[in-house]
């Protein structure tokens, strides 16, 4: 594996990976299939597509992209994971890639010790799926106080809300407090005392759940809160690529629709009122691509030890501040410019709006990321 590049373009390897993921999703995760999954979620069920996940995680090897080769992973970088997320965003695919292969995996990569290494090996093969038991609404700038307590007997007690991917995870990674400070624990989902309660969620394709630990046996995988912080930064930076994928689908789909849809005896896409909005949106998406690629490139170099954490933090904050807003704007324009059909359950546009809006809140709002730049870019606020 050569050193990751800072290039903002896609490498040939990245394009090949994209083509493989897109083929799979076109085949197995088209709009009708995703809508059926959303219906499952809406009626209280678990929407995840386990066959699709197996194909993505094992056959394509996406689960192990961030895991080093010596632990059985692909030894790729954040750049490749970002490309997978772009495609998953374009399809609003219902798989635990972001929760397991990005968030949980990033946390484990920041841990030392055999327990974490062993778990990474299991995750890389795609046999095992993990979830980081932290609220999706957590900000990387103010990670929440651990809500779970690790007792002297090695069991955990407490409740975490707003968790993604828990209902399909085999292992839950839980930030805990204990007598010596903070730590990250691994808990088997099937362990006694673990309960996962799905929450009726805005985002039907990535619902949240409440995870409760009532004295479940836990294994400490790392002391301190460094792994959680790293995972939140990596997650925020890579989420920008998912947001890019969402925005790209919304723009492409809307442009195609306004060419077809006729009112006043002409395609509505010939009206300047619509063309100018789409030109502006295109420009936003072009910027989102540059910003998301920049964040992925910086995270890749950070992982390889060749980028400073200040530069990485700036690249992540810029990408999140921009892409989070662009994805929501693209989804809102998609609904508006589709007119009545965009407001129906039958058309997939609402799935993108729901994902985009949830992603805007996820791992820091655009405002949180802009505020972080006050320090990072030396633009201090008012004195008083």
């Amino acid at each position, binding site marked *: 594996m050569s050193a990751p590049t800072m290039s903002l373009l896609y490498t040939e390897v990245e394009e090949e990976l994209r083509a493989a993921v897109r083929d799979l999703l076109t085949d197995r995760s088209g709009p009708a299939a995703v809508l059926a999954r959303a219906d499952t979620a809406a009626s209280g069920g678990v929407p995840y597509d386990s066959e699709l996940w197996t194909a993505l995680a094992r056959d394509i090897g996406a689960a192990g992209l961030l895991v080093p080769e010596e632990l059985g992973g692909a030894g790729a970088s954040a750049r490749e994971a970002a490309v997978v997320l772009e495609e998953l965003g374009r399809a609003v695919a219902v798989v635990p890639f972001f929760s397991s292969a990005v968030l949980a995996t990033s946390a484990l990569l920041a841990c030392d010790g055999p327990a974490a290494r062993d778990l990474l090996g299991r995750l890389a093969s795609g046999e095992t799926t993990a979830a980081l038991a932290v609220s999706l609404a957590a900000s990387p700038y103010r990670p929440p106080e651990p809500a779970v307590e690790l007792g002297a007997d090695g069991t955990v007690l407490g409740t975490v809300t707003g968790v993604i991917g828990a209902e399909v995870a085999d292992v839950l990674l839980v930030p805990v407090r204990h007598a010596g400070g903070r730590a990250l624990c691994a808990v088997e989902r099937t362990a006694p005392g673990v309960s996962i309660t799905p929450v009726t969620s805005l985002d039907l394709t990535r619902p949240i759940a409440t995870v409760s630990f009532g004295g479940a046996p836990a294994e400490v995988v790392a002391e301190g809160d460094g792994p959680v912080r790293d995972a939140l930064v990596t997650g925020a930076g890579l989420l920008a690529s998912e947001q890019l994928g969402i925005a790209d689908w919304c723009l492409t789909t809307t442009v195609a629709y306004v060419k077809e849809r006729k009112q006043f005896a002409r395609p509505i896409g010939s009206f300047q009122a*619509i063309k*100018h909005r789409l030109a502006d949106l295109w420009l936003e998406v072009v*910027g989102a691509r540059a910003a998301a690629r920049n964040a992925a490139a910086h995270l890749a170099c950070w992982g390889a030890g060749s980028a400073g954490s200040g530069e990485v933090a700036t690249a992540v904050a810029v990408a999140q501040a921009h892409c989070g807003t662009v994805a929501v704007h693209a989804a809102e324009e998609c609904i508006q410019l589709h007119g009545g059909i965009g407001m129906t359950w039958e058309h997939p546009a609402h799935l993108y709006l729901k994902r985009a809006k949830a992603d805007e809140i996820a791992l820091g709002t655009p405002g949180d990321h802009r505020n972080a730049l006050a320090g990072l870019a030396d633009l201090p606020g008012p004195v008083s």
Partner: protein
Amino acid sequence: MIANVTWDEESVAERCRAFLAEHDPARMDRLEFLRARFDAGLAWVHFPEGLGGLGAPRELQAVVERELKGTPDNDPGRIGIGLGMAAPTILAFGTEEQKKRFLRPLWTGEEVWCQLFSEPGAGSDLAALATRAVKDGDEWVIDGQKVWTSVAHRARWGILVARTDPNVPKHRGLTYFICDMHAPGVEVRPLRQITGEAEFNEVFLTGVRLPDSLRLGEVGEGWRVAQTTLMNERVAIGGAQSRRSMINVVAATWRSRPELRTHELHQRLLALWVEAEVLRLTGARLREQLAAGQPGPEGSGMKLALARLHQRLTGLEVELLREEGLTYDDWTFRRPDRVDFTGRQAGYRYLRAKGNSIEGGTSEILRNIIAERVLGLPPEPRTDKDVAWKDLPR
């Protein structure tokens, strides 16, 4: 002449060194040096041999600029219209005589060029222009008014589009000329703008007689010739502006005036800083694509985004300054050589930036271009395409 040479970095660098060995700029007149550089094919390497170039790939120009660094240059900022617009058009459409006559003094800066396109009645709809050119023997007689003409008061030549046939639809009745700015009947008046100064002129053309040898391209082909000029103009504008300069200016003001900061302005500044950074990255990605030989459509958007960013940043700076924002540095009627965004006060920047969304294609026209050429959306139905120009409502 060296025939069929394939130029590369090394051979171009070698030619530069050989040129310098024979032409020591310390012992030569500046203009003689520039003329010799042109004759050596080191003016613009992608131009043909004998016309200041080597017929080499365009990117090898960077090698020349590196090798000849520190030698007298042609002050490209002063002759930007000639270099960026007139030269590529003359190269594409000029006769051999025209290329021989005009390109060398254009490049050395001996002859300054201006652009006579826009008219009071033809801005975005350039093809509707009304300046008439009527054939009289071997000459053309020009009557009309042009506007927004930079450096017309110092120009020796102008690139001019005029109507030669009012009886056909507007795009078909145009012809492209080289206008002799010293000819009788050419009157240049400064056009004072909202900043108080006059970067531009109005040019009145009254019975101006141009020989047919100053026609560029065929009669009636003017629109096609003008497209070459306009495409090169947008490339020049997109490439010329520094992507970070305005945010750096405003950020410096912000840092130096802590007593003026408010929470509301802080939020807006941070949002604009993100916008500037995203635009910088977009530009960086665009240059990577170009270097990799995969030019993307992103270029069409850069000017649009920069105009919006500059206007919002400069507006914020004036507002931040409060009482100082009520002042203006200098309303003296002057004729500046170039736009100086950073050397003047906030009020000037605010006012001058208003032109960014108008000059070189309005933001509205650029949105149409993106929508139609990049996104492939259908054009608005047109009522003016198949009507003779003389019958169009005006």
